């Protein structure tokens, strides 16, 4: 498990990470969310032993990352931001290099390379030079070098950045499959990714943790959490008034001529009440569903300190 206590990083006057503490258990997929410059990458670089913290303690499965970086790096796989790789090597040579450093030789090394290449669907380009690979393949090569030794802790800095939707889906599926007994930390600024792969979300902004909980809890902070979305041709002002008069309803939002959104007070459910009124008025409903919450609203509210929240 990972334990972080009082972690800070200053670059001159600038404070990139400001006294954060958290711990992660095996099996968790933790998503770091936050605007650019929030301190996500800096935190990850410190977790991997690349950057030395200004203060604080990081323990990775019992190894102190600052005092014994090599011991920690042995059980760690890391995909740096932008998936850097030596451009003059082939994909296979890159994996051989990393595999050798990880202690594999001979037949075992070949076996491992074949395995990861299959896992990330890299077989077709194994003998091409890295500089000729597309962004998607480069990212997958980065992933492959991070997971070749089946690490206990996997840290991925924006693993799906720049990938097309199919590739994104593939990478997310891969992360989910890997995650069973591992600790995975993913940074992203794509909110849908959090619900797609993470069991836990952490929002960072200006080097501080603003939120730490499950994606569901994050969604529950939204005004739209449990809001009832109704689509129908029969939406008349009188009906809207009736809905607005409901005790637990804060607002009925007119999304379009044929669609409304009924927002409840925080934590309440209004589906049953709304349903009753719709039935009583014999409204022909085209579609009706309950919103889980809008992550981007929550994200904006949290990271902008409420100033410009919608």
């Amino acid at each position, binding site marked *: 498990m990972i334990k972080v206590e009082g972690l800070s990083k200053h670059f001159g006057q600038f404070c990139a990470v400001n006294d954060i503490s958290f711990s992660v258990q095996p099996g968790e997929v933790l998503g770091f969310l936050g605007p650019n410059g929030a301190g996500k990458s800096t935190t990850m*670089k410190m977790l*991997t*032993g*690349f*950057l*030395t913290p200004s203060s604080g303690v990081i323990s990775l499965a019992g190894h102190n990352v600052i005092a014994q970086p*090599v*011991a920690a*790096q*042995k059980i*760690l796989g*890391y995909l*740096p*931001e*932008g998936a*850097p*790789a*030596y*451009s*003059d*090597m082939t994909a296979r*040579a890159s994996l051989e*290099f*990393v595999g*050798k*450093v*990880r202690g594999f030789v001979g037949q075992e090394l070949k076996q491992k390379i074949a395995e990861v290449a299959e896992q990330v669907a890299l077989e077709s380009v194994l003998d091409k030079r890295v500089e000729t690979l597309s962004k998607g393949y480069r990212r997958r090569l980065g992933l492959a*070098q991070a997971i070749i030794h089946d690490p206990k802790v996997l840290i991925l800095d924006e693993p799906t950045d720049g990938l097309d939707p199919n590739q994104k889906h593939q990478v997310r599926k891969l992360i989910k499959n890997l995650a069973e007994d591992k600790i995975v930390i993913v940074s992203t600024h794509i909110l849908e990714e959090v619900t797609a792969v993470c069991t836990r979300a952490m929002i960072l902004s200006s080097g501080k943790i603003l939120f730490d909980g499950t994606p569901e809890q994050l969604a529950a902070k939204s005004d739209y959490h449990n809001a009832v979305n109704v689509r129908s041709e029969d939406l008349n002002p009188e009906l809207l008034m009736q809905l607005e008069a409901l005790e637990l309803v804060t607002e009925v939002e007119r999304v379009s001529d044929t669609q409304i959104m009924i927002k409840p007070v925080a934590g309440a459910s209004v589906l049953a009440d709304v349903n009753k009124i719709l039935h009583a008025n014999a409204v022909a409903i085209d579609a009706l569903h309950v919103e889980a919450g809008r992550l981007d609203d929550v994200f904006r509210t949290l990271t902008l300190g409420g100033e410009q929240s919608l």
Partner: protein
Amino acid sequence: MKGVSIILNRELSAYFSTPVAYIFIVIFLMLSGVFTFYLGQMFERGQADLSAFFNFVPWLYLVLVPSVAMRLWSEERRSGTIELIMTLPLTTWQLVLGKFLAAWLFIGLALVLTFPLWLSVNYLGSPDNGVIFGAYIGAWLMAGGFLALGSCVSALSKNQIVAFILSLVLCFVLVVSGFPIVQDVFSGWAPLWVIDALSSMSFLTHFNAISRGVIDLRDVVYFLAMIGTWLYATVIVIDIKKAD
């Protein structure tokens, strides 16, 4: 040691997977031929030795070694691969040493490829092969000194051109520090020990001693200490600058 050899192998194969290695070797061999036969007037001298070649080697290295050294760390920092290798379970020392040794072996290979010169003088006369061997060792040690310095400078800058020029200037200072041009600046006001220290810092003083065929332990220690010191400085610089 295993980590060092993995890095060394990767680096060496990187040299030969691009045209850089071949261009370097061809230019080195061509220039050493030009210097030896035209400027050094090997035939006209009528002596069966390679001093015509070894007199020019320090100046050749002054330009060519920084050009090998400049990419050692600048390139890693610019392309971001430094983050990849420094989060692998390897110490900074292993990385610095592996990269240095690869470059040093590569330069050594270029030096060995000047063997036709050696064959020529042996065909033309009967030179003292002990002296020639000593001079080759000396030249390689000197290249190591230049290279270690260049490695440190390369770690300082993401820009290869800056690294090249800076290490060329520093190497130049180290080469000429025993020359009158530098000594004159200090003589007359600086205490004698400063002047002595300066001249004993000179690459050329130590290289000339070895290339005369006298492998004095002090000269060897000088170059090894030079290499060790600059590599140590490289480790420190990398630990400070890697994330910039």
